């Protein structure tokens, strides 16, 4: 059979499924940006650090812990907001967080425009690139998080609860360099450890805790360049993911939270926010060994 036969056969699938797809705007919550899940354990570590060493302003003053587990919203629409020309994704799909020590005080404005296609005016399409537009917590107030002066992460206060949002892209989808992303996240200063997990993020395969080593890996990530991927390359990424060749790099942050990237050593690509970047051979000459011998199961077929 040829592709047109298959196209026709697809045309005859169950009408109920077709109708569902007509109204659907559903998607999975993003698998990465899944930080905070072990915040309670890390709190103990932070506590010890305070006890052992003279408190640095940050470790003594700010700790962020997750308060709620969020099940996917009924519509499944990705929870995002626009601020200062950047797109932010709500961390943990809009879980509530608690600030201990320092509360956010510096206001950054109010989320004014609803761009949720289900509830926004005109399907929410008019304001999709406007600052202060959001698919979630519209009416909420934005705050600077004291330890994130570059606004890589910001807090949203809505109905007395705090949510976190993390920068994932520019609103106009123009390129962001790896340096820009890494500088804004201030990862070099803030990451304590790096864990390598399987792609879905439920199995820790390796832990790197040596501070100098962690720092040198992050320095190495600065050498990544924007990947202008072709369709074939996107397909190769999809293939690598399904074959268990994509790993999650989880950075454990000093405030008790985490952030994550995906890395595919075989293709020499790494994700930062919503984009993929190409890593030079030199990165893998230096760090390739850490991925040797890691085993993860391929993603389930269905």
């Amino acid at each position: 059979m040829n592709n047109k036969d298959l196209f026709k056969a697809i045309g005859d699938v169950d009408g109920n499924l077709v109708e569902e797809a007509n109204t659907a705007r559903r998607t999975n919550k993003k698998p990465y940006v899944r930080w905070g899940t072990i915040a309670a354990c890390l709190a103990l570590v932070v506590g010890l650090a305070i006890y052992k060493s003279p408190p640095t302003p940050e470790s003594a003053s700010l700790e962020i812990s997750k308060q709620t587990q969020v099940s996917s919203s009924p519509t499944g629409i990705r929870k995002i907001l626009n601020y200062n020309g950047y797109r932010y994704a709500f961390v943990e799909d809009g879980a509530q967080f608690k600030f201990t020590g320092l509360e956010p005080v510096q206001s950054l404005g109010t989320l004014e425009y609803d761009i949720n296609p289900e509830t926004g005016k005109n399907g929410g399409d008019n304001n999709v690139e406007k600052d202060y537009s959001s698919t979630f917590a519209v009416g909420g107030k934005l705050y600077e998080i004291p330890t994130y002066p570059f606004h890589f992460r910001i807090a949203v206060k809505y109905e007395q609860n705090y949510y976190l949002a993390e920068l994932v892209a520019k609103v106009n989808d123009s390129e962001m360099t790896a340096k820009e992303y890494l500088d804004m996240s201030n990862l070099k200063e803030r990451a304590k450890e790096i864990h390598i997990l399987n792609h879905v993020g439920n199995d820790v395969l390796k832990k790197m805790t040596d501070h100098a080593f962690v720092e040198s890996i992050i320095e190495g990530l600065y050498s990544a360049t924007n990947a202008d991927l072709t369709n074939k390359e996107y397909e190769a990424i999809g293939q690598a993911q399904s074959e268990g060749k994509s790993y999650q790099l989880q950075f454990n942050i000093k405030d008790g939270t985490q952030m994550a990237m995906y890395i595919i050593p075989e293709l020499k690509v790494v994700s930062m926010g919503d984009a993929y970047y190409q890593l030079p051979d030199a990165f893998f000459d230096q760090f390739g060994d850490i991925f040797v011998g890691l085993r993860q199961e391929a993603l389930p077929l269905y």
Partner: protein
Amino acid sequence: MNDRDIIQLYFARNESAVEETSKKYKKYCTQIARNILSNVEDSEECVNDTFLGAWEAIPPKSPEKLSSFLGRITRNIALNKYDYYKAKKRNKEFETILDELNDCVSSSDNVESQYEGEQMAESISEFLQSIKEDHRNIFLRRYWYSDSMTDIASRFAISESKTKSILFRIRKKLQIYLKKEGYVL
């Protein structure tokens, strides 16, 4: 007017059936045709043919879902029209969609690979029911509604790269599934 009432008009051979169908589904069908043909005039002609086709088909047919029934006719008419197009006039985005489907088939037209269309559609439905709901919807937006990558990405609020990699993975799974079911692709 609800679908059941419209279908009753068809059964009563009342010509307002076509008018009511057009009122409710013209936009829906036009979008499907335009995704395949890209040309406005041809798409409109295609939608008119769809309504005529529905008039001829109901009765004896009594579609359970009028929307997908009409959409299916539109798709088939548009695909036939598309075949008549010269290379220059072809819609590049739709060409890409057909290219993507080549991942699942060998593109041969030999007799051995003849298949029962309805039976295969049933298998594809079963496959789609076995995968995640959002993946199913993304697949159908691409290969049933022929939506562009950009439209799908914005509809599901995900990046285009993610859309592409999801679709790639589903195509691979579908190919494996159909082979397992005994289809010669």
